[in-house]
């Protein structure tokens, strides 16, 4: 370590003293330099917008004015039935999607990982495809499948059911809109959940199962005492991302129910606004009605809901061990 000058990457030579202590200072300066782009970018494009959104939520902010209005946006939200509807829709979707998606994914992951099952790479490639495909494209394709005389009703007719007005265009009732959105969402993300559960199952050491077998444990015991407890952290993670993702759904209901064209015309979200989610509501409020302050207030509400759900979820999962 006797270098007097170290060539820096821009070609200059940085001269440094020989003292040892200074060498470590010099190195940490490099470390700070290397991590600074992340933090600068986060400050400008991450932290600032978030802090700003809490300010915006207390203003009337339109393209032509910005005034501090205190809690007025939140008071308006209390009597805004469309916002109430979007909150309930988002929560409905969150609940149904989380329960069915995570439950089914766990079951299928067990099947995929059962002893001696072959072709795992193939199944996983298949499951991965919807996850990486644009939700806009998927919403479009499923919109055709869910059409009144589309493929889904054609199948249902074959078994003597239906036709079901999934998208509410024929009967004008939004009854089946949320189930349709939930089906598409679950279909899109279940594969990724299965892949994550599989990775979790794979990480359980073989010896545990062998030991359990030697001890004469039944399959039920193995499942309840070994597999499920050891999957807890993975399950918590999957439930968390599913909750956070599904409460913010935007693209799929938007595309199922007519695309961007419905925004601003009061028809966003389909019949009875049954497919209007919180994100759709804040999008329309800001970008079609120019009410940026009010839309920011909706975003803050969304954030609060996510925060509460995350805390409750954590409590439910780690109640016994850490509570």
């Amino acid at each position, binding site marked *: 370590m006797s270098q007097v000058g170290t060539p820096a990457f821009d070609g200059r030579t940085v001269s440094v003293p020989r003292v040892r202590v200074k060498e470590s200072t010099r190195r940490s300066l490099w470390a700070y330099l290397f991590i600074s782009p992340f933090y600068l970018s986060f400050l400008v494009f991450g932290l600032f*917008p978030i802090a700003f959104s809490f300010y915006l939520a207390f203003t009337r902010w339109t393209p032509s004015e910005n005034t501090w209005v205190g809690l007025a946006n939140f008071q308006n939200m209390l009597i805004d039935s469309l916002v109430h509807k979007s909150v309930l829709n988002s929560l409905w979707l969150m609940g149904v999607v989380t329960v069915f998606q995570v439950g089914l994914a766990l079951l299928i992951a067990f099947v995929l990982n059962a*002893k*001696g099952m072959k072709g795992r790479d193939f199944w996983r490639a298949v499951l991965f495809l919807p996850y990486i495909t644009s939700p806009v494209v998927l919403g479009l394709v499923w919109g055709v*499948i869910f059409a009144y005389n589309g493929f889904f009703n054609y199948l249902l007719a074959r078994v003597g059911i239906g036709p079901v007005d999934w998208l509410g265009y024929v009967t004008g009732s939004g009854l089946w809109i949320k189930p349709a959105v939930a089906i598409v969402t679950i279909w899109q993300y279940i594969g990724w959940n299965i892949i994550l559960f599989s990775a979790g199952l794979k990480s359980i050491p073989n010896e545990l199962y062998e030991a359990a077998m030697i001890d004469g444990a039944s399959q039920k015991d193995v499942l309840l005492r070994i597999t499920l407890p050891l999957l807890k952290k993975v399950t918590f993670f999957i439930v968390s991302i599913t909750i956070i993702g599904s409460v913010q759904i935007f693209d799929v209901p938007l595309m199922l129910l007519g695309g961007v064209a419905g925004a601003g015309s009061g028809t966003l979200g389909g019949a009875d606004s049954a497919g209007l989610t919180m*994100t759709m509501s804040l999008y329309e409020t800001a970008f079609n009605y120019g009410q940026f302050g009010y839309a920011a207030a909706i975003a803050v509400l969304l954030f609060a809901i996510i925060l509460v759900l995350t805390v409750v979820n954590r409590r439910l999962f780690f109640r016994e061990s850490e509570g």
Partner: protein
Amino acid sequence: MATMTTTSPIRNPIGAKALRVPSIQKLVLYALLGIMALVTLFPFYWEFVLSTHSTGDISSGTPSLFFGAEMLNNYQTLMEYVPYFWRSMINSFIIAAPTTLVTVFFSALGGYAFARYQFKAKEKLFWIMLATMMIPGQLGLIPWYIQMSWMGWTNTFWPFIIPAIGSAFGVFWMRQYISSAIPAELFDAARIDGASEFGMFWRIALPIAAPAAGALAITTFIGGWNSFLGPLVIMQSPDMYTYAVALANLRGVHGTDTAALLIGSSIATIPMLIVTIFGSRKIVDGLAAGALTGQ
């Protein structure tokens, strides 16, 4: 069954290994997986099939399960409705490619610093970075849009490329890999040989971390390629739309041609099919491991 014994002995036959599965049960399990694959793949097949039928046939309610002859007509209709369709595909690429480069480079740089250096605020800064991953993206959408218009960045690609410098997941992901895959001695040796700090990153850490960087690149690229809500609010002129925005704008407009939309969607789906067919095993393993170590 002979092939089973030839697979690597290290390979763990996974999961509920203690469950012995008799062959009839196994058949049922395969049938279940088969149904699952069918349900997963059918909408893609249907997308491609319908893009070769006329809109009239599609809405007539008697679906044909096989390819039709209207593909070229539908394509022409698409070009008529959305003359900027290919431009929108290029725009998606213009967002995806630089975003990927920027994210991978700065994530690797930050991850390298967290993995290889000791500095005072390291723990705190790392914790802050992890915490930023918890913030739901849509909270900042509206202020972000206002900020972009202040900066004069609306209707440009900058709002997508420059913020890509700060990917918390990327930094975390690269740090995990670099700290576990590269022995510290390698850097000590390089340092004795007079390598610069950046040189060690560029010539040692980055090449060795290539698998992690590759997986990060592919996910970042997919994210950029599919970007929708951001461009939807930022891009004002049709020639700046991404393909997702172009398709979303077309859908629902009076007189929209469903078949034309479907051929557009099909074209946009092809890159994802290629990723799935050629690269998915590595990505899937890498991403699943990465997502779970985040715990």
